[in-house]
């Protein structure tokens, strides 16, 4: 040590000074306008130019869509008489119900609403903070909810097994809500009250057993209560409109991730057979247009199934769309997997985690989080792509829109239904995109 050391008492003591609150710059509306739009000569010119252009472009559209539009009429003729160059929203309004529900009987449409209401009810707990084991609720939704929805939408004489599953779904939903209510009331979960009894039977499975027992009991109760309820049969070819679009794209969106994850993991697998199978599936499906896949699903799929299995067009289409969506999602997920640094695998392994634990606890949560924008983008495009099913004769929202123009009262009404559908789709897709941004912010953990 060469430098001379001073005794500690002579050193000045460093104390960090207190922090100040951050500087906030505020200016009112006029201030904002002056700063951002009219900052200088060229800024002002640009602003004026852009706004004039917008006016020139938007004025005719707004005239047509709003100022000269007809909202009430009973035929297209009447519309044209009232305002020859305005939109005829009356036709869309008359047909609105069909755009949403297809040809589902008017008197029974409450069942569609009820079915979707149950779906929403199932999603609510996923958004509540104190709810635990959300992943199980989510998985149960994927497994059980389709039976319930199918039962409500389709009605008629279903097999007992199907009925049991529907009751199981209701039972699970009820159990979930009872538990939530108990937790909010500061009590314990329902199943925990039963546990002490069951611990005499089997210590290890007491928890699982008591949960299952509660579920069974609730399901049986619900089954007995609903014993006399008979729902009129509504055949699948009467389903249509936005309702059908949501069913198909709902399946595609929900199944895309699991299928995509499995295919993506398969593609990185060290077992050749699994790897080849995954690569073949992904590449085949991705290099064929969606329309072809849809046609093939309707014409060729029956060849692969034994005659005894009664396929319906909707099920075939859903299967095809799910595989299609899954193959695309696989590549998105693979991109996410590749973005994970190798050190994460090392760390997981050094903690002792095996392949599945590593993937599902460490790698996939990070990969999926990094991929949220891409995943939601493909959700949105799946939602829009499902409108292609009108080509194979399913009465989804697009086919219903085309039907308006061949209705004898509204003959030739082409543009208005399409504009209306665009607006509807915009709101749904914009909602999804906003949700994804919210999710991204919420899950951000690095700052």
């Amino acid at each position: 040590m060469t430098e001379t050391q001073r005794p500690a008492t002579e050193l000045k003591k460093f104390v960090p000074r207190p922090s100040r609150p951050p500087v906030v710059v505020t200016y009112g509306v006029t201030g904002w306008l002056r700063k951002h739009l009219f900052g200088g000569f060229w800024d002002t010119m640009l602003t004026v130019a852009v706004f004039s252009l917008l006016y020139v472009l938007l004025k005719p559209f707004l005239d047509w869509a709003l100022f000269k539009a007809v909202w009430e009429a009973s035929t297209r003729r009447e519309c044209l008489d009232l305002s020859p160059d305005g939109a005829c929203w009356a036709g869309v309004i008359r047909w609105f119900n069909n755009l949403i529900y297809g040809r589902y009987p008017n008197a029974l449409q409450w069942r569609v609403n009820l079915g979707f209401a149950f779906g929403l009810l199932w999603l609510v707990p996923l958004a509540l903070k104190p709810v635990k084991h959300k992943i199980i609720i989510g998985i149960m939704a994927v497994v059980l909810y389709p039976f319930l929805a199918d039962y409500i939408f389709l009605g008629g004489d279903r097999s007992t097994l199907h009925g049991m599953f529907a009751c199981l779904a209701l039972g699970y939903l009820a159990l979930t809500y009872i538990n939530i209510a108990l937790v909010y009331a500061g009590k314990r979960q329902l199943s925990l009250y039963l546990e002490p009894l069951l611990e005499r039977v089997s210590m290890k499975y007491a928890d699982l057993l008591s949960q299952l027992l509660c579920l069974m009991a609730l399901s049986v109760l619900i089954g007995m209560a609903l014993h006399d309820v008979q729902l009129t049969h509504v055949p699948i070819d009467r389903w249509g409109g936005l309702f059908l679009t949501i069913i198909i794209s709902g399946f595609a969106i929900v199944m895309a991730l699991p299928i995509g994850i499995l295919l993506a993991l398969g593609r990185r697998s060290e077992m050749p057979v699994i790897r080849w199978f995954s690569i073949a599936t992904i590449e085949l499906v991705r290099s064929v247009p969606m329309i072809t896949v849809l046609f093939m699903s309707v014409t060729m799929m029956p060849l692969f199934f034994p005659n005894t299995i009664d396929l319906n067009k909707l099920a075939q289409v859903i299967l095809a769309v799910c595989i299609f969506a899954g193959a695309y999602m696989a590549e998105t997920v693979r991109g996410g997997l590749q973005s994970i640094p190798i050190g994460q695998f090392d760390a997981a392994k050094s903690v002792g985690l095996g392949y599945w634990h590593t993937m599902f606890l460490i790698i996939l949560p990070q990969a999926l989080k990094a991929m949220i924008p891409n995943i939601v983008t493909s959700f949105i495009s799946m939602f829009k792509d499902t409108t292609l099913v009108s080509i194979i004769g399913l009465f989804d929202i697009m086919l219903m829109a085309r039907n308006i123009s061949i209705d004898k009262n509204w003959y030739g009404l082409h543009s208005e239904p399409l504009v209306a559908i665009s607006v509807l789709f915009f709101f749904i897709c914009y909602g999804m995109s906003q949700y994804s941004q919210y999710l991204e912010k919420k899950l951000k953990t690095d700052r």
Partner: protein
Amino acid sequence: MIDSPVQKRQDKQPSKRVAIQIEGLNKWFDQFHVLKDVSMDVMENEIIVVCGPSGSGKSTFIRCINRLETYQEGEISIFDHRLGNDKNSAVLIRENIGMLFQSFNLFPHLTVLKNCTLGPIWLRKIPEKQAIEKSMALLERVGVADLASKYPGQISGGQQQRVAIARSLAMAPRIMLFDEPTSALDPEMIKEVLDVMIDLAESGMTMMCVTHEMQFAHQVADRVVFMSDGEIVEIGPPEQVLKNPEWDRTSQFLKHILSHA
């Protein structure tokens, strides 16, 4: 370089039990021969410091011990159990060996506490409450208990590395491997991590530590291994290897790092 007097633990009883036995280890990356006939025994409670120039295969060597790397020839045994590709080996490694990395490698999507409880809950099936208690105690021990609910991206490097130590300790290993745990850190943080490591060494952990912190080597190492070009050149007590090396390569390397320390 500060030549402060080093206090060395004198009370330590050398153990007779072999913790890690490495025999004739050879490894190739394609054509490149990274490890050449590496053999050594590590006794229980022994502290080994591995040093050597960059690219000499230090990381590869200690990564072979917990099978983060595969090797083509040779044998590694942990407490007399020969490691292979089987399930038993995986369990044995998981129950006995913890590892620390230069880049910390905490799981960024989990809080500090969850990083620690993950292994105990999912692998040892310890009830959550108990796992949290134990992890909090460990975080306390490494001095970061107040950060339990933070995410790794929100804390400093030194704190991250100490959390990584707690995460390893949560699995109650008997052997800890360190791959340059302090080389991504500022001097002040190096000290806080080294202090924890010294504390670990004194608690009787078997440690194998790739590091260039010579002060640490003098203070706690029982033996120092000097590697170069995939070979163990010299192995012996720190006073011998670091002060009176037998080989020119060793003394050359030591001169090099001493002039930079």
